[in-house]
């Protein structure tokens, strides 16, 4: 029988070490202010806005090597700031350093007043507005789209409906076949898919109607369920582990700041997201409609780079890779990055691969503007 325990001397030593950690960590946290924990610090300019949506243009960090600008489009769950979490963990900075002309759309903070906004409003309306603005500013006939997660679905739909305005489509950790979580069926992977399918369409309607929107906190709780013990130990054992290391503590706080910034998902758009896509899986079947227009993935005839995380527990790889056989181009490339859903953006190994791949892809398909 295994005994759990330790010797009195070792216990005293551990207690002393723990006490020192707590004191140092307490002091660090006491001295820190919210303003000290900064994310998304890469300089950028607001160039266009409509309602709550803002389009930012990043200031260049290197000589421009690609004529066609890249627009980063995150989803309505979470915020794009994950792509620029901190200086040494920033997809945005890496892309700028490789000479890309970079824009990002921020959806703002939807409130109950936005409950009737649909995905068509976001995709054909706001995203379309951003694309038009970039075309005008850069003097180009089309743009490169880089969609992330739900934002990848937005860019996929946009590329299928307005293919003449999209030069290349790069997707990152993007679900296309929402039922393909069953392909690998790994424990702890694809819980959102399973959970959403456990509800009826009426359950989804009532959940949204009762709250107006899909509350950010609600989705946060679902995400916490996906790694239950980690969620329970995060603010005690995990925090204590790094409490006396200022740099690691700051990294941790930056991530927490991003996690805490979880806007509500507009109600009607959330109904479409959960029912049309997660439950009825219309996108991969070419049955999804926006504003009465069918999203036919076969219309995606521009070059496509599909980036997925090989250990993604939120968007299992098979749900992303389902795009390959559906697009209407032979210029389709997949890139598997090591790590999980967030590790793609902050992991050291994936950072070394991700931005160069995106930049190289954009460069290979660049246009010369007359």
């Amino acid at each position, binding site marked *: 029988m295994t005994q*759990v*325990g*330790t010797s009195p001397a070792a216990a005293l030593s551990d207690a002393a070490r723990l006490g020192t950690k707590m004191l140092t960590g307490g002091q660090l946290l006491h001295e820190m202010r919210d303003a000290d924990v900064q994310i998304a610090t890469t300089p950028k300019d607001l*160039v266009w806005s409509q309602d709550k949506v803002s389009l930012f243009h990043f200031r260049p960090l290197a000589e421009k090597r690609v004529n066609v600008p890249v627009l980063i489009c995150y989803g309505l769950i979470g915020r794009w700031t994950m792509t620029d979490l901190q200086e040494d963990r920033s997809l945005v900075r890496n892309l700028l350093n490789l*000479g890309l002309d970079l824009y990002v759309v921020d959806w703002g903070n939807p409130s109950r007043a936005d409950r009737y906004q649909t995905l068509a409003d976001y995709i054909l309306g706001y995203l379309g507005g951003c694309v038009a603005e970039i075309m005008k500013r850069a003097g180009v006939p089309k743009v490169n789209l880089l969609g992330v997660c739900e934002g990848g679905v937005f860019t996929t739909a946009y590329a299928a409906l307005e293919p003449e305005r999209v030069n290349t489509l790069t997707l990152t950790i993007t679900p296309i076949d929402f039922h393909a979580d069953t392909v690998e069926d790994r424990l702890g992977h694809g819980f959102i898919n399973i959970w959403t399918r*456990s509800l009826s369409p009426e359950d989804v309607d009532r959940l949204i109607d009762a709250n107006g929107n899909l509350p950010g906190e609600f989705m946060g709780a679902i995400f916490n369920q996906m790694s239950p013990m980690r969620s329970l130990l995060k603010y005690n054992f995990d925090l204590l582990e790094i409490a006396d290391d200022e740099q690691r503590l700051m990294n941790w706080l930056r991530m927490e700041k991003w996690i805490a910034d979880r806007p509500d998902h507009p109600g009607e758009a959330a109904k479409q997201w959960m029912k049309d896509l997660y439950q009825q899986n219309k996108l991969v079947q070419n049955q999804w409609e926006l504003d009465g227009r069918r999203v036919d993935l076969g219309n995606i005839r521009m070059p496509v780079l599909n980036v997925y995380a090989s250990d993604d527990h939120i968007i299992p790889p098979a749900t992303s890779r389902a795009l390959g056989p559906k697009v209407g181009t032979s210029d389709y490339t997949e890139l598997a990055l090591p790590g999980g859903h967030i590790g793609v953006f902050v992991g050291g190994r994936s950072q070394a691969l991700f931005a160069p791949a995106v930049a190289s892809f954009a460069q290979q*398909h660049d246009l010369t503007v007359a």
Partner: protein
Amino acid sequence: MNVRRRGLEHNAVVLQAWLQAGRRFTEQLAGQSDTKLDARAALALWTETANQQLLESQRSEAFLQSQAAMIRATTALRMAQQELVEHFGKQYGFPTRTELDDVHRTVTELRRELRALRREQQMPALVAARPASSQPLAASAESSASSAGSLAAPAAPSKPSARSPKPQPASSKQSSASAEPSRAARPARRPSANNRGTHT
């Protein structure tokens, strides 16, 4: 009452998972050799065991059904509360949620129409452009298929998914496990003078 009952039912399912996790943990301790396990190693074992058990439980029908029932009960309660507030609100002449929703719907529809009108007016004419290569756009896209594949190093062929409706030709649609090495960034330059705006 219904919320409480559904909450208790769900908690009972979760409790079962915790109890099962505890059983597994003690079994694992008993199954190990008679070495002494320090507190840190014991915590790691417990965390791993409990996590595994909780994840298994979350996928069970019992968990999913009790959680869905709890969500149904809480949303029903919330809607009943709103109905009650609406009733009293009307009596005292306060604007109600229904009226606000009505306004919000109208505003959303007006915004939608406005956006469509703006789009029609402001969509810039397509700027004349030619591809970086001397080939026409379409030809360039086709020919770039092989170059896009050069992202792959090593060029591991994509494994077609078991659910894929059609197999991917390895020569045209490619998969890669890594990318070409980063090129050295050129020296940074200062932002141009006309690039002033809201610095965030």
